[in-house]
């Protein structure tokens, strides 16, 4: 995490219990929407990072959500910057961070 302010973001309370799929045009709470309307600002602001608490999500973070949201940011800003800015965890899904990183690394690899 970067040395600065950490935003504690409760995904279920502040965004949705039901994350969607890839694009805004495909449905609500998409990866594209979360990236552009929540995370982009974090990346555009210096010394701010975000800790996303995804506890309580009813469905799952689908591969297309993770790829479009986090993968695209890793492509845009680089994987090192991404790792400094975004941290995700869930009390009911201990594998979530690992799953997200799979798509982040895949996207970053595509970009290299």
């Amino acid at each position, binding site marked *: 995490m970067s040395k600065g302010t950490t935003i504690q973001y409760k995904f279920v309370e502040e965004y*949705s*219990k*039901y*994350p*969607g*799929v*890839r*694009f805004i045009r*495909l*449905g*609500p*709470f998409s990866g594209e929407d979360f990236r552009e309307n929540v995370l982009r600002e974090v990346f555009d602001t210096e010394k701010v990072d975000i800790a996303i608490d995804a506890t309580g999500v*009813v*469905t*799952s973070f*689908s*591969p*297309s*959500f993770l*790829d479009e949201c986090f*993968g695209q940011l890793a492509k845009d800003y680089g994987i090192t910057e991404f790792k400094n800015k975004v941290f995700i965890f869930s009390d*009911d*899904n201990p*594998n979530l961070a*690992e*799953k997200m990183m*799979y798509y982040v690394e*895949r*996207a970053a690899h*595509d970009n290299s």
Partner: protein
Amino acid sequence: MKKYDPSVLLLLTTKRERKRLKRLAKFSISRGRSFIKNQQNRAKIVVPAILDLEENRAVFIRLLDQIQNILLKNMSFVIDHRQMKKITKSALLLLTSEIERCTKIMGIKLRAKSKFVPVDFHVKSLLDKIGYWDYFNLNFGSSKLRNDNDNELHLKIVGDTQVSGEKIGCLIEFFENSICFDFQTKEKFSDALMEAAANTVEHAYSENNKIGHIKKWWLTASLNTTINEISFIFYDQGLGILNTLETSQKNIKFKRLVAGWISEGLSKGGLLRKLVTTNLSSYKDERRGNGLISFKTFIDQVQGGELTIHTDDVSYSAIEDKITNHTTSIRGTLIIWNIRPNKESDKCIYIRENKL
């Protein structure tokens, strides 16, 4: 004078037709006769006794054809359910979707008439529990059928034009409330459904459809507590998986691979099998979903899983590795997952191993 029950059938009619019927009704009632009997232009669709895609597919497809023909002729129609003796959940989902397509496109409002509901107790019960009437906002009053003692719980039919996590979420919650569902299974299950719905919304429908479409997907699910089996069924009325390969995949490597399979002489069924069983991630756009292989992977990882995909006029059963060619098309894609733990005493459904 013959007396007709006014609360009769499931009546489908256009606004213009309804006005005409109203006029006729006044006329007929004044003469002590039913207006219904006087209608020459209204088609009557009699739902056959057995509706089962496996057992009598041709009869079922003929029923869908009948509904579609009426749509194309812009006729009003009545659906008589009284002869029904057996209907599978898949057939019911397809029937619901076809009625919805016709009524949406024609701008028809459905009306409930109790005379034409099924007579058979089990069919009546299934239609009630799966939400067939509720889906069309048809109210027959409180049903005594809810006391039916069978051990199957049903998720009422869900349909949408978008991928709504909430609609998929209600399915997850439905199962979570009834069966032990570890987080890995839940996650795989949710991923598979979300991606299936996303593929449908993004790729399944083309503008060149003579019947017209409403770009929806439909879903239902059930849990049998006796055999501890869950099943979920997903359907869209799109062009079918094999007919959308061209538009859904832009990657040249993927196109070459498919062209190679075709030049090897693979049948449609063989092509479907390849698509379901081959990991295509290195042939497709890297950052797009893995499609059908993810359904297969999910089924391979859970205990007692079965996956059957029907698309157009072919079907493929992944566990039996069996291709079936049919003479009729289901005009869309139907995906059926059944999951049953192997151990009878085990009330949980588990993923065998944790793999991304």
